[in-house]
Structures are given as C-alpha cells and as structure tokens.
C-alpha cells in the first residue's frame, strides 16, 4: 500500500499545539482522499536548535527505515512519540539522503558479540547505528545493558574492543569518559557502546561484553553454574 509519513517537530512540551493539530488534520483529509495510510511521528525537541535538528534528522532517518520496513509487510504503525534528551547522535556526519542506501546489503556491517558466557553471537547491523541500537534491535539478551538508553547517564553498555578495532573508533568525548571511568573491569580498549557508530571500516569487528560486577561466588555447594 501507499503510506504517508507525517513528521511533526514540536518544541518543549507542546504536544497538542494548534499548529501540529492543524497540520495533522489537513494531511489526514488529503491523505484519505487519495487512499494513503497515515503514519504520524511527533518529535519533541527539548534542547537547543542545532543539536535538536541533528538529532531529529537522525531519528527521522532511522524511523523512515523502520517505516519502509513496516510498509513492506503491511504492518500498521501507531503514533510514535519521542521525547527526552539523548546522547550525541550517531549520524553526526551522515547525509540525510543515505537512508535509502542503508537498506542495500552492501551497507550492512557484521558484528560479533562475545557474551558473558563466552558465546559468540554474530549479527548484521546497519551503518550509522550505535552498538547499543544493535543490541536492542537484535534483541540480544545482555542483563542490564543500556539502562539509561544511550544518554550517557550510566556505564552499563560498556564493551571491550580488539586493539586494531579500537584504534579505528572515533575519539572519546569528555562526557563519555566521565561515565566510562565508572565502569567495572575497565580496560585500555574499553568504550561505551551507545557512543560507537558503525562504519564500513568496522565490518567484522569482534566486541566483548564484560562482566558488570565482581563474581565473588565461591560456594562449594553450587551445582550448575549459570552466570
């Protein structure tokens, strides 16, 4: 079917601003006439203009990807409301038009995760996604991973990289460093997954999910261990 994506950018808490409502009404009316399905996306911009614009672009890109995916399987989408502050957007250097390209297989990147049990999990992820996005999208079951949802308010997305991969990563910011410093089991090749954006040069990388706490269990009557 044909779908119309309506992206509304709202500042502050103005979820029901007259402008947004009017826009929605007009587009709904015209879309109905031409038998379009309408998908609404409201963006609440809680921060300064340029940072918010960047974020909005990044969010709209990833949502349009999902929108196209949903449309192709005729899945209905309900109103998606995004609000709250986010950490630095992964696509700070990406052009808006590259979203279409990301659906081609050449723009997928292979990532190998070694989980806390030592098992290797291989996934194919999209360029421009953060490693936290990948863990969430692929439903990888790492206990407590990404608690603050990528806003640099915790250290639970701590990942350990191989030396040569580590050197290819974008330089660390002060804000990431502040939180990374608090991570358990910090190494020289540690980073926070929510800040690492996938690029072609990182294809095939192996990344380890470290233990999040010291394993002090030494009980003799432990039968099967399950950690």
């Amino acid at each position: 079917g044909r779908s119309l994506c309506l992206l509304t950018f709202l500042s502050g808490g103005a979820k029901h601003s007259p402008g947004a409502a009017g826009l929605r009404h007009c587009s709904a009316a015209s879309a109905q006439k031409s038998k379009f399905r309408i998908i609404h996306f409201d963006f609440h911009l809680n921060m300064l203009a340029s940072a918010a614009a960047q974020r909005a672009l990044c969010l709209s890109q990833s949502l349009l990807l999902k929108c196209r995916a949903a449309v192709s399987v005729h899945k209905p989408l309900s109103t998606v409301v995004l609000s709250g502050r986010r950490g630095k957007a992964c696509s700070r250097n990406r052009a808006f038009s590259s979203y279409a390209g990301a659906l081609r297989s050449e723009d997928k990147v292979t990532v190998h995760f070694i989980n806390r049990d030592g098992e290797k999990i291989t996934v194919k992820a999209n360029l421009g996604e953060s490693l936290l996005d990948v863990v969430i999208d692929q439903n990888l079951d790492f206990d407590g991973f990404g608690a603050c949802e990528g806003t640099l308010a915790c250290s639970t997305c701590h990942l350990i990289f191989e030396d040569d991969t580590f050197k290819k990563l974008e330089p660390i910011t002060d804000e990431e460093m502040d939180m990374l410093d608090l991570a358990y089991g910090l190494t020289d090749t540690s980073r926070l997954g929510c800040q690492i954006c996938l690029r072609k040069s990182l294809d095939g990388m192996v990344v380890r999910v470290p233990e999040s706490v010291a394993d002090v269990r030494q009980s003799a009557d432990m039968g099967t261990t399950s950690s």
Partner: protein
Amino acid sequence: VDIYEKLPVPFGLVRFGVAPDHPEVKNVINTFTQTAHQERCSFYGNVSVGCDVTVEELQRAYHAVVLSYGAEGNRRLGIPGEDLSGVYSAKDFVGWYNGLPSNKKLKPDLSSETAVILGQGNVALDVARILLSPLDLLKKTDITEESLEAIAASQVRRVLIVGRRGPLQVACTIKELREMINLPDTKPLLDPTDFKGLKDVVKELSKDVRDKIVDLHKAGMGYKTIAKQLGYWGLKFLRSPLEILPSPDGTKASGIRLALNRLEISGEEARAVPTGEHEDVDCGLIVSSIGYQSLPIDPAVPFDLKQAVIPNTLGRVEQVSGLYCSGWVKRGPTGVIATTMNDSFDTARSVLQDVESGHLDFSSPKLGSEATRALMEKRGVVPVSFSDWEKIDSAEVRKGQEVGKPREKLLDIGEMLTLARA
C-alpha cells in the same frame, strides 16, 4: 513474582532521589515498566511490610522472599544543635524537592545568605546545584511546584560544601563536579592553598581523581568568566562539624562550628585528624549529607545495627531459609543505579541457584497473593496495582504538561489513592 511497596507509587529513589535536572538517569523506569507489564509479575503498592503484612506471613505465602527496601533513615551527625530548626538531612531535603509525601511539610528555611552542606558526595552536590540553579532551568524539570516557589524566593547566595578530608578524597564523581563548575550564573569559590603541593602528586593519581583536581584547580583560578553572578559555591576541605550554633533566642541555627583537620596518610589510607583549632561559619541552612541508613523492617528479620544492613551471604539472609536481600539494605547505601541493579542480578542468581539445587523446597505449593490478599482484606488494606499506578502516572504527566514540565508529582497519598481507585 509479586512486588510489595509501601507507597502507592513504584520506583523508589529513581523517583524520589535522582535530581530533577537528571531526567536521563530516570530512563531505567522504561525497563522497570516492561518488567512490571509481564504477566507473571504483579505490583502491590500501598502495602507496608512489617505492618500491613508481616515478613513471617510473606514467608508462609511465598517460596522465597527478597527484601530490597533500601535505606530510609539517615546517619546522624551526633553533635549539639543537630535538632535545631534550619538543620536538615540531605535525605529529607532531597525528598522535599522530589515530592516524597513524608517530606512535603518540610518547609526548609531558605532565608539566610549562606548554606552549609556537610559531605562532598554526589547527593551533596545535587543539593548545592538545586539551591543555585537558575529558575529557567529548574522550572522545566519535575521538581515540585512548592519547592520551585520556595527556591524562587530563596535568599541563599552562597553554598559551602564541607568535607572532613582533602580534595583527593572527595566522594563525588567527575560528572557532577563538572556540572557544578559549569552551572550558569554561579562562580566557584576555591581556596588555592587547598591545592598547593598537589601538582607534584597529581601524575601518580588515578585518572578519575586527576581529572577532578585539574577541573577544580581551573575553576578556582577564575577560568570561567561570567556576565552576572547570582550565586557562589565552594568546597571547604579538612573541616569536621563540632556544633550547630543557635540563634540568640535559641530557636534556630545561626551558624556552625567546624574543627580544622589535617590528613594523616598511611599507605593507601588517609585519615582526618583534628588539629585542635576551629572556625565558626555564619549560616541559617545546614544540610547534612553524610549518608543514608537502612532501618530494621520486622522483628523476624535479623539486622546488624552497627553496619545497618541485613546480615547475608551473597544475598541469602543468614540463618533464615527462603529469605534474601538485595541493594542498599544488603550492601550499605552507596553506589549508582547500575551498581544496585547488578547487585540485584546477583541476588536473583542466588535465588535461582537455590531453586536448581533443591535448597528452596518447591514440593509444597504456596498460596502467594491469594493468602496475602485475604489478610489485607481482613485488615482493610487496599493495594494499588501497576495499572492503578498508571492512572496516577497519566494524571501527573497531564498536570505537568499544562506548565511545561515532564510531570507534576502528586504529594498527597490520599489524592494518589483516589486516582488509583477511579
């Protein structure tokens, strides 16, 4: 898994402890909500364990009981004048601006120019930051309306954050320190003599401590130029509280006497040792931020009064089968959300191990909430379910939207219960 909570609303310190201007730290609520929505998980709010239902009754009804009720008390200073008007624990002060119902009548006195905060951890910095934050920033947060009004009328212009030891021992983390240094319309007051001689030692320090010292030193040198200054804040080191000094009529605090310390270093440890000298600081607001403290919940639960935790091994309560503990009541009241979350995972692993090993006896079925609901009905206790909480949640978000805030918290338990039962 059934969750019993004293208040009608869930989330504990994520709702009542995290500062209003740290909304992203509260994102964990989404993970918690997902868990609560699972079919096999039920929430029973407005139920006071130890009172409405005893721990023994819970143990009879459930195969395993986990105590994770945190630390609702606070460490006392143990000095004269501590109970004067104008002296508050950080726990109560934070509870006040975060809408904890039991602190809604605090009405702290913000009429004096100088406030002294005892302690230099993240909670102390939170209090300082909220006291000095520009109102434009505060009014967009979920700080309560009443505290916003009180802070708008506040006369406090100088906040001194006092610690027993030196800059190398501050307990706060660098993120919070940077926030203070970058706080608009404020200027740090730092004594350069506090940092004398540290330049030589700095290279040997851990990166985290090194960063803190560098930032503090830069801040103290007037590194930041600001157009207008509405407030000052400073870190005072090597000072311990001796006595809160009363006003002439003896009704409230008018100052604090601080003992001057020196540091005695032995290996990795640095101890504060009094020099015998002291100084007096005029102030009308004193916030004691020296730590939260757990309290015993029920006579059937062993409690270590000295350490103020439940005695346990890996979360298994000592000498009581089927009873576990997690979080601050297990390890003591320090650590961020991630630390406590991981600790809870640890206790959960202990429970699961005991299930697998047969240590927990599942052969006889237990009634679970069937039993507790019968007891509560008999006692006139009406629990609040998670979907009831969501009615309260929507109402708060709606009220907040009217004034451009993420939510306007309800302060009255009666109001919460009325909404829950609507």
